[in-house]
């Protein structure tokens, strides 16, 4: 578990790379794989810039990603599996890598999508960029795998050292391109990219991703959120963007200003319904946090529930996968 938390921090690390530590890690990874060290190491400010740098490499030779990363991992996984058995391996993975997998894999995929969108002016360019992205070692975003093997041998030390000190990197026979880490990363408590007033992820050269609670949004869309009105929210035709608008504006404010009436009220909370033109209704339960804030007030929050929900209790129960009759906490805080 101590490894997981350290690797969780690596996955979320921002700021300038320790270039010499990262380069030492990369060189060690080559030696551990039985390869000669690369002649050239090129630094780039972002994964996007790194892809461009890779495309400009001359005489770098073939990709050695399989030798440097994939094979050592496969060997370590086999060795650990043989040592621990199926149940032991499964327990190790669930206590380590599995805890970081979802958030880091989602983040890496968003970065890939962002690089492709930024670099491909024509759809036919996409496969070239995707091919370069396949050669990447994910550095800090390989944290889930590295957490699982941490403390179990030294064969992956070079990969781990590179991951602790830099972003993605591209290993070729004679050259390596290494990307800096992001300069800013904003996430919500669930680990999703999330920022309402600027990029949720940004690199020194301006490559950036915008997202609201994990949902990708255009930069100019975020800029318009500050001046939202209920009319503009109702007029937005894209259902996903309208949801972001509603969340940003605040359900409570929207409900008050649009004159919505509560549909149902019981001991668990209040059920609200907002009719939407050409889309399913927005149905929400308003619940009060049982534990008081430090100032003694109770925080109220809204959770969206399926449109067919009839009572507040059914709505709260649904959020925990139960039906209303089964939901009966004897104690809540």
């Amino acid at each position, binding site marked *: *578990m*101590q490894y997981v*938390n350290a690797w*969780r921090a690596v996955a*979320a690390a921002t700021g300038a790379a320790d270039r010499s530590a990262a380069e030492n890690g990369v060189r060690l990874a080559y030696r551990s794989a039985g390869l000669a060290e690369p002649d050239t190491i090129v630094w780039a400010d972002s994964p996007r810039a790194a892809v461009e740098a890779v495309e400009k490499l001359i005489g770098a030779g073939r990709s050695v990603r399989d030798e440097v990363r994939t094979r050592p991992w496969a060997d370590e996984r086999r060795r650990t599996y043989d040592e621990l058995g199926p*149940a*032991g391996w499964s*327990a190790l993975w*669930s*206590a380590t890598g*599995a*805890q970081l997998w979802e*958030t880091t894999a989602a983040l890496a995929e968003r970065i890939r999508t962002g690089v492709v969108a930024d670099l491909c002016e024509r759809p036919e360019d996409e496969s070239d960029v995707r091919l370069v992205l396949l050669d990447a070692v994910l550095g800090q975003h390989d944290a889930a795998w590295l957490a699982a093997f941490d403390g179990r041998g030294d064969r992956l030390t070079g990969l781990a050292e590179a991951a602790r000190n830099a972003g993605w990197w591209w290993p070729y026979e004679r050259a390596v391109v290494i990307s800096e880490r992001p300069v800013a990363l904003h*996430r*919500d*408590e*669930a*680990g*999703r990219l999330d920022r309402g007033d600027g990029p949720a992820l940004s690199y020194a050269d301006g490559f950036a991703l915008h997202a609201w*609670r*994990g949902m990708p949004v255009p930069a100019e869309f975020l800029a318009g959120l500050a001046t939202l009105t209920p009319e503009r929210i109702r007029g937005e035709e894209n*259902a996903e963007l309208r*949801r972001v608008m509603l969340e940003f504006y605040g359900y409570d404010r929207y409900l008050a200003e649009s004159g919505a009436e509560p549909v149902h009220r019981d001991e668990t909370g209040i059920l609200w319904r907002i009719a939407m033109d050409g*889309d*399913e209704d927005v*149905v929400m339960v308003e619940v009060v*946090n*049982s*534990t008081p804030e430090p100032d003694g007030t109770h925080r109220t929050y809204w*959770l*969206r*529930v*399926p449109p067919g929900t009839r009572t507040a209790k059914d709505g709260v129960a*649904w*959020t*925990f*996968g*139960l039906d209303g009759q089964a*939901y*009966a*906490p*004897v*104690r*809540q*805080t």
Partner: protein
Amino acid sequence: MYRQGDVLIVELEESAVPAHLVAAPGELRDGRGRLVLALGEVTGHAHAVVGPGRLMREAGPFGPMLLHLPEGGRVVHEEHAVIPLPRGWFRVVRQREYAPGAVRIVAD
């Protein structure tokens, strides 16, 4: 049935627990010796159980998490009051939210 923020803990009859889980190895504890039910990625605040017992991740009707407390325990969180739990087996459920076409977990 007990609820701490976005985590619901539901009693389970021992006879309902699948045989392969009764003696399954549990998850590792965190650096403070706790069983972590849910962790906030940004604040690091956790819904966690203090006391002897095991936590198992299990997909399906008994999952996503199953908790066994042979002597009872306490659920703690940095922002919520402590909840004492009796001895026994529990199913642990994380709160979710409806989104058209998808379901999202709630960030407490």
